[in-house]
């Protein structure tokens, strides 16, 4: 018996406890948490980056909330809302809250540093061309912020994907189910299988984000080689001094 046997067993790939179903649930919880976190963090980050104010307060409190122990907070929330929330939501709400708390800080940091570090030459040029402040934000600063923003989302995804295993603690599905059930049943191959699947999923998402980056980020921003300061050739049609 080994982990490979667990993977090779066809009954582990089908049914409500099968690997595809659990992966689907895992991605679902991750996706919901990331969407909510992005909806909170990106506007907040834009405001902080644009106005330049409140960076320490906002970033500091986001990071402090993240230091709350995930499992402890999960159980506390469950015990608190259990008398008032009916049905399945009582397991889902604490899980999503806990994952959102983890996901917000990287996206927030990525957004406001991205906006703040938008190339000032580009901003200046836009202002010179007569763009309004909102147009500058939307057409220049946000696209320039995209690499850092995407890297923030990427870092956040990685954390949420590996922590979403905690959903299984409250009886929900997801790849954590293999880890927790495997431990309880003494089936360590199941545990190892679950862990390997989480790592594989994280790896796949990393690759997906790299591809997304090449698609979405403007080529000018992607130029990572040293900027070659080639001398600008004189404008075509300029009359040479000697000929005047």
């Amino acid at each position, binding site marked *: 018996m080994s982990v490979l046997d667990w993977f090779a067993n066809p009954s582990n790939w089908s049914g409500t406890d099968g690997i595809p179903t659990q992966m689907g649930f895992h991605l679902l919880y991750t996706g919901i948490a990331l969407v909510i976190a992005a909806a909170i963090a990106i506007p907040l980050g834009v405001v902080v980056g644009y106005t330049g104010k409140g960076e320490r307060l906002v970033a500091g409190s986001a990071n402090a909330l993240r230091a709350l122990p995930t499992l402890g907070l999960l159980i506390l929330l469950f015990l608190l809302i*259990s008398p008032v929330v009916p049905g399945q939501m009582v397991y889902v709400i604490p899980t999503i809250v806990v994952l959102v708390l983890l996901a917000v800080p990287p996206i927030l940091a990525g957004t406001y540093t991205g906006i703040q570090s938008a190339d000032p030459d580009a901003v200046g040029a836009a202002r010179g061309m007569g763009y309004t402040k909102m147009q500058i934000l939307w057409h220049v600063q946000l696209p320039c912020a995209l690499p850092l923003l995407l890297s923030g989302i990427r870092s956040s995804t990685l954390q949420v994907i590996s922590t979403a295993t905690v959903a299984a603690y409250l009886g929900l599905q997801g790849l954590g189910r293999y880890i927790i059930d495997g431990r*309880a049943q003494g089936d360590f191959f199941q545990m190892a299988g679950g862990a390997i699947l989480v790592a594989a999923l994280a790896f796949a998402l990393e690759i997906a984000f790299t591809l997304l980056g090449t698609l979405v980020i403007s080529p000018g921003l992607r130029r990572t080689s040293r900027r070659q300061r080639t001398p600008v050739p004189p404008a075509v049609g300029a009359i040479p001094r000697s000929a005047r």
Partner: protein
Amino acid sequence: MSTTITRRRLSIAFATTAAAALVLTGCAGQDALSSDGAAGSDGDTVIIGSADFTESQLIATIYSHALENAGIEVKEQFNIGSREVYMAALQDGSIDLLPEYSGALLKYLDTESKASTSEDVVTELTDALPDGVSMLDISPAEDKDILAVTQETADKYSLTTISDLEPHMAELSLGGPPEWKTRVNGVVGLEEVYGLTFKEFVSLDAGGPLTMTALTSGQVQVGDIFSTDPGLTANNLVALEDDKSLFAAENIVPVITTSKLDDTIETTLNAISAALTTEDLIAMNGEAATGTSLGSIADEWLADAGIN
């Protein structure tokens, strides 16, 4: 310029020292992952283990304090996990002694067993125990897994026994520990003996706060609760009668590695087993639920029972 170089050298030196200190603290001390088998088999130290729920730790604490008072060297290794995990630890020598529940242990070792009374369980268990492991006297104190429902659920479906669940099973969710999914004393047995396939099985904890809260708040309609849980009466829950005797008699019994057994240990543990009653367990569980330390509860019980 020389001050800059000195400062650089100082910071490099400081960083190296800090890194080295971290590495050394990691190497020093006990390796947390190493099996305690080698350390435990030195002479007389008895390593006491327990499962991952309060009552098991409580009884293990009682054993631990009593044996220490009797002059035996003990080492505590509590909160290991479910039976599937700690039985492996017992057999490989990582732990030597732990409190067990006779019927549950029997059903784990021999899934075909049909014994249900205390005496039958003892007879079969003595044979079923693996080589090198022995059991001492059973205690009259019992703590069984029971299926509990709220008073409202019991009234709604007219439930008094587990069999009464069968016509309504498609509407009911069962809550229990993850190990129940594969256990005879769990989902597997409920299906074989009672023909019960619930709407869903929600993995929570072994008769702990998660299951209790889910049950009382209505997230699950049927929950695995321990019969000595003071929350049964406190939350007005109904314990369904096990009319087909799926869950056998669960007397507390010390299970110990045979090579570690000696007269002192045997006498002390048997005295504890004889003095322990189900009411004691309920009372102690109640105290533990209010936050009193297990050590003080154990000492109090030992003093009242007159042991050491």
